[in-house]
């Protein structure tokens, strides 16, 4: 099938992008570089989830992309709040 072969050709590009984002997320000199690396990694992975959901022809798999993007965004809020005030919570 044409769509499956096209997606199979595209998936290695997503893997290369994942490796590049992972390098920045692991190596980044400052804390905001790490956090931005995790963000880009997870947003890339959310798109990969949707593409793989089309690849496997399973619509239920696509639902998992939405919590991934939302909950990793919460990590930004936590780290920003910690770096701003040095306190979390009450």
């Amino acid at each position: 099938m044409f769509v499956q072969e096209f997606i199979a050709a595209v998936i290695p590009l997503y893997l290369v992008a994942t490796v590049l984002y992972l390098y920045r997320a692991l190596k980044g000199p400052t804390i905001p570089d790490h956090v931005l690396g995790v963000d880009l990694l997870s947003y890339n992975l959310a798109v990969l989830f949707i593409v793989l959901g089309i690849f496997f022809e399973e619509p239920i798999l696509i639902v998992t992309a939405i919590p991934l993007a939302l909950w990793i965004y919460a990590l930004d809020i936590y780290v920003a709040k910690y770096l701003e005030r040095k306190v979390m919570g009450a």
Partner: protein
Amino acid sequence: MSLDLLIYAVGAAASLMSVVAVYLALVERDLVKAVIYSAIQSVFYSLLFYLFMSPDIVLVYLPVAGGVLPALLLVLISKTERFERE
């Protein structure tokens, strides 16, 4: 047949990269960076659960490992010290 092999290759790459993140989280002295490394590990584990065809586990694992656990660890770090001593 090669398409199945591609999916296995994606899973193998994700597990290798999660091992790197776990090692760095263990040896890191700055505890905020260690929390971020464990978030990277949870992102790759969610990809692995996805490839094992269990989206329900992904839906539970992401709020716990991406939302609750970093929040709890940052609250604990803010109560104590940020850098680990010898």
